[in-house]
């Protein structure tokens, strides 16, 4: 079930990212599991940036350590002869590592989304910011803006230059394009994530980023569709949004009506003890349209906190008995008596509870 996967993935990710990563993982569970088993981020992002053809990518990944990969300058240039102007790699490596750690690569679409979120998760937890929800908010902001707003603009520019060089190299050979598609297919099994570059579609960073964003939005819309009843049959974002809006409006209206109803029932907004007993039993019974009286079985003594509340309530009722007019006094007296009954006699608890409910119905 989603809940299990969400909570399972959440246990892996760190605390401030709970909501987001739980939802992310619902859709990207495979990829995130693979990510967790992956070599350090620097290597995976590095290979992703290279956009190598399939066999080269596989070979690089099968290399034992990421350190070897990075330090192995002699290995790379031989493979990079296909790419024009790619002899600048050694100098860029440090930048790539820094960038991968700082997770500024929102413009990089290839595999960046789960990776960058993981990176920003780590950076957010590393900074141990005092406001976790700001980190949570800036995290989607980072991944969504095609131009990163801030920490390393120079790194981004260099990466853009590198990507352009690679694009030129790619454009020269159609084979490399289809190979890239294949590599993205292979990537599903490899320990990093590619955004699937479909055949015939543009592979520049902007459209890929947009497509990944679209996929995210669609994933969340699916979640919403499952949540809102009667929405799973509908296709199309606009209609689904309409249903969601109707559902939210109806829920808000229900809250209004119910609060008015509760205000009408009770002359004072204190509720009786039955409602205070039930928190302990809500877990046992899943609280559908529950019969509160039938649930009151004081198997265990209420907590000290509740006991404290009861003391206050009893004192309040003592005062109120003096102040309130006639019929309200009756109700208060009934409220006062029945909890004592339920406390003193276990067997008659259900009886007293049903007695109370019937009394309140009479008064209504």
């Amino acid at each position: 079930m989603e809940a299990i996967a969400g909570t399972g993935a959440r246990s892996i990710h760190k605390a401030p990212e709970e909501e987001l990563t739980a939802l992310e993982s619902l859709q990207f569970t495979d990829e995130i599991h693979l990510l967790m088993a992956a070599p350090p981020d620097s290597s995976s992002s590095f290979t992703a940036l290279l956009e190598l053809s399939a066999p080269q990518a596989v070979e690089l990944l099968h290399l034992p350590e990421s350190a070897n990969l990075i330090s192995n300058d002699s290995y790379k240039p031989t493979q990079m002869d296909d790419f024009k102007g790619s002899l600048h790699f050694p100098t860029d490596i440090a930048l790539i590592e820094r960038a991968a750690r700082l997770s500024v690569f929102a413009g990089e679409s290839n595999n960046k989304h789960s990776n960058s979120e993981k990176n920003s998760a780590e950076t957010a937890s590393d900074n141990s910011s005092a406001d976790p929800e700001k980190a949570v908010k800036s995290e989607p902001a980072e991944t969504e803006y095609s131009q990163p707003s801030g920490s390393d603009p120079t790194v981004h520019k260099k990466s853009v230059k590198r990507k352009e060089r690679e694009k030129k190299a790619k454009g020269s050979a159609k084979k490399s394009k289809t190979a890239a598609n294949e590599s993205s297919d292979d990537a599903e099994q490899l320990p990093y994530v590619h955004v699937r570059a479909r055949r015939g579609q543009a592979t520049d960073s902007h459209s890929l980023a947009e497509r990944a964003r679209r996929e995210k939005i669609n994933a969340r819309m699916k979640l919403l569709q499952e949540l809102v009843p009667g929405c799973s049959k509908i296709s199309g974002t606009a209609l689904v949004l309409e249903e969601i809006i109707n559902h939210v409006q109806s829920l808000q209206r229900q809250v209004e009506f119910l609060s008015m109803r509760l205000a009408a029932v009770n002359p004072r907004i204190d509720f009786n003890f039955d409602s205070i007993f039930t928190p302990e039993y809500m877990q046992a019974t899943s609280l559908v349209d529950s019969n509160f009286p039938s649930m009151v079985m004081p198997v265990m003594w209420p907590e000290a906190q509740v006991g404290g509340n009861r003391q206050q309530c009893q004192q309040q009722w003592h005062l109120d008995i003096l102040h309130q007019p006639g019929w309200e006094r009756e109700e208060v007296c009934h409220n006062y008596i029945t909890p004592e009954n339920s406390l003193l006699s276990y067997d008659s608890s259900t009886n007293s509870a049903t007695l109370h409910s019937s009394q309140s119905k009479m008064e209504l």
Partner: protein
Amino acid sequence: MPPPSSLKQEFLKKWMMGLHICSSSKKNMSILERKKAIKLSADIALASARNGTTCWSQAIIVNASQDDQDKILVQHVLGRESERLMKKGSVLPLTSNKRIRSRKILRRSCGSIRRRARKTIATSPPKVVAISIAKKLIRKRTQLLKRLVPGGKFIMDEISLIEETLDYIISLQAQVDVMRSLANAS
């Protein structure tokens, strides 16, 4: 997603706490006052169940803290968290107002582009027209959703808006269930 039954439990406890505080402060409230108090303590209890991790819960708490009377209730229900949250809450509206103003300025300047777009729509094939209509509908409905979800106007990107809506719907459903069962019982 936390299991719904613990959410309901927590919500009920905090709601009762809030109601006790409300009733102890005022006596002999009218029905409308009672309804407002009930709804307010329910909303604050719901927001405190999320405790500042989501945008809508923050917005509810901040809005409640604007009013002096409700502020006391918020502080009691939330405890120590309330001070931390209210500090953050004061930062949010300021930055977002600037963004909203700059967006409006941009929109006015882009009006001329829209006139040109309308001409192209009239001449283009029906598929493209349908797509543009769908986009308009989606845009309008996301704006409507932003207005519905508390604190939605501060959410800039669609993705987090959808996540907020998701969480908000779950919490609202729990709130409605608890209130309905309480109303049926009494």
